[in-house]
Every structure is written in structure tokens, then in C-alpha cells.
């Protein structure tokens, strides 16, 4: 069974979805991603869906779940490159994905993640609890 590759970039994980998402693939992505976040102690997850043209409520919920799970493992999720048609579909399905940060493209998404991680570090460092 094919799986969606997860790339490690520093303290971020990069996932680009380039095939049609079927339900089983979504579930395995969820498992792999949580395992990787735990393994590398990643601080950010970037999911690029610019080539995704079809979504249903299951995929929408899966994206929301991934964000929530990453949150629990102390990683921020950014969703990038959503197509207009996909955005309209998700809104019509009543899924606003309010827990997820979004960006127009991967470049902006990485910027957003770096900024977030930096802010978090500045916030934590004075205590000396993290480093």
C-alpha cells in the first residue's frame, strides 16, 4: 500500500499531498505523522494541498484531527495552497477548520512556521525551561 511521504526539514515536517486522498491513505498519514512528530520532536507541520482537487467531509475532518493531534504533541500545523473550489466545498460542508493556520503557498507557510517557532522560543527562553 502506498503512503504519503513525510519530509523532515529542521524542526519542521513537510507533507505534500500529490495523489487523490482516499480514506485509508488519510488514516495512514495520520498515524505516520504523529509517529514522526513524536520521534523528531518537531515543532511545526506543513501540509501542502495545492494539487488536491477533491475533498469530502472525511478528509476535512482528518485535516482537523491532524492539527489537533499535532497541537497535543506541541507542533503547529499550517495548511497551504488550498484551491478555491476546495475552500468553497469545505465551507459548504460546514468545516471552517478554525484550529488550523493557513497560508497561500509553501513559501509563506514556512515563513509562518518559522515566525511561530521563533516567538515560542522567545517566550520560553527567559525561564530556561526549554533549552
Amino acid at each position, binding site marked *: 500500500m502506498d503512503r504519503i511521504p513525510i519530509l523532515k526539514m529542521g524542526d519542521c515536517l513537510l507533507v505534500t499531498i500529490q495523489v487523490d486522498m482516499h480514506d485509508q491513505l488519510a488514516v495512514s498519514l495520520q498515524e505516520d505523522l504523529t509517529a514522526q512528530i513524536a520521534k523528531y520532536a518537531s515543532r511545526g507541520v506543513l501540509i501542502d494541498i495545492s494539487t488536491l482537487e477533491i475533498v469530502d467531509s472525511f478528509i476535512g475532518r482528518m485535516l482537523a484531527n491532524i492539527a489537533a493531534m499535532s497541537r497535543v504533541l506541541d507542533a503547529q500545523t499550517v*495548511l*497551504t*495552497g*488550498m*484551491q*478555491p473550489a*476546495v*475552500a*468553497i466545498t*469545505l*465551507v*459548504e460542508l460546514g468545516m*471552517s*477548520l*478554525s484550529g488550523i493556520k*493557513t*497560508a*497561500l*503557498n509553501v513559501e*509563506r*507557510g514556512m515563513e509562518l512556521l518559522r515566525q511561530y517557532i521563533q516567538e515560542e522560543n522567545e517566550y520560553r527562553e527567559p525561564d530556561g525551561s526549554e533549552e
Partner: protein
Amino acid sequence: MSSVHEVLQKNEGAILSGWLAEMAASTRRSDLMGDTELRQQAAELLRLFAHAARNSSDTTSEAFSATREYLREIAKSRLDQGFTPSETAMFILSLKQPVFNSMRDELESDPTQLVAEIWTVGNALDKLAIQTVDSAVEFRDQVIVRQQQEMLELSTPVVKLWDGVLALPLIGTLDSARTQVVMESLLSAIVETNSQIAIIDITGVPTVDTLVAQHLIKTITAARLMGAECYLSGIRPAIAQTIVHLGIDLADIQTKAKLADAFGLALSRLGKSIVTAKPATNITSKPKDA
């Protein structure tokens, strides 16, 4: 219907003048149409009708196709001139009286045939009048559909205010169909221009009810999902009161009273600011050197 045709041809002049007199007495609108044009139309229609009546009494038949075509033209031109459909129908129906008069004179000797012929020709004229009204309504419907489409296209411009800042000034009432167009044009503009911030300005929206608010929230959520921030501006005080009274929750949406305020916010989000380059010149007075 052969005798109708004979009567019509024999008395064409008399019927035409009788018809024009009848119209002058009832539904004549000299403000909309000149005498010459009316006379010409009436004469042409009478000629076509007489010609068609020679072959058939059925107004849907092939023989009447030229008559029907001409009546469609009349319906269209009269609609453009400002006649109501009923006035156009009366134009045809007022032909009855002079035709009946002529037939009565011709067929005095045979009352049975007279009644039968009057029935046939009356029936034919009624049907033609109804068809004409139908055409007039059809043309009017076409105008309405065209105007609706034009309004849809005209009323959803997406304007680029700055590099990365889009504005969508909404004018007129928002319904489901329009929201769909607004949403699609905004989202595709976000992709095209790679904009991070979109401002929806509702200064031109007369009323905001729960449905309109829901449409706005949907559009803003969709833009956010794509990674663009969306601000709502142009909220008049009265509309702010309505929104709160209706219990609409706009807490997740950045709102501003004026488009200028929203634009200022957008610039500061992009890390830009506006500074005065030099003291303002009085633009109404001309430079002294010139």
C-alpha cells in the same frame, strides 16, 4: 374561410380606415407611435391576414407563418416603444369590428353563413392576439434575464489596492446566487494575485440579515482556508445594531467601520506605513511660476 378572404380583399380600404378609426377611438397612443407608421403596420398586417385566410383558418398552420412572424416583430417593436402587452393585443382585437361590419354588409342574404364566418374570423383574430401577447411577454422576460446577468457581472469587481491587498466593494442585495459568484471571483483573485489580505466592503449593501451575514461568513471562512486574511469593512452604525440584535456572531472576523481603516490595518499587517513626503500643496491654486 374562402369568403372571408374575398370580403377582406374586396373591402380592404374600408376595413383599414374603419380599423384606424376604431383604434383612434379606443387604444390609440399617438405619444408612442406616429400615424404613418401605424397605418403602414395595419395595412401590412391586414394584407398578410387576408392572404393567409385564403388557405386556412388555423392560425398555427403554415399559411399563417408570415402573419405570426410579422406579429412577433410588432410585439418586439411595440415593447421597445413602450406599449403594454394589452395595448398591443387591443391593436389586433380592434380589427374585429370593421371586419364584422364588412361581412355583415356582404353576407346580408345568408345569416347562417354570416354567423359561421364571423365565428371563424373572430376566433382566428383572438388567437393571433394571444400569440402576440405571448411574444411580448417572452421579449420582456428576455430583457429581465439579460439585465440579471449584467447585474451579476457588474456588481462583483475585485480591486487590487496594494501589492497583496485586495478589496471587494459589494453593492446591492446579497442572495445565494450572488454570494456564490462573489466567493468564486474573490477566491480566484486571491490565487491570481497571490494576495494575503482581502477586504470586503459592504457600504453598498442596503440591509444585512442573518442570511446575508451567513453568506459573508462563508466567504470569509473560505478565504481564510486558502491562507488569506479577510477583513469586513463599511459597516454602518445602523447595521452594527442590527447585527447585534439578530445575535449574529462576528467575533472571529476582523471588522472595521470604514474601508480606509481596514486598508490601514492591512498595510500595518504587511509591515508598511504611509508617511508624508513633503508638505501638502494647495491643489486648487495654480503654481505661480506657470
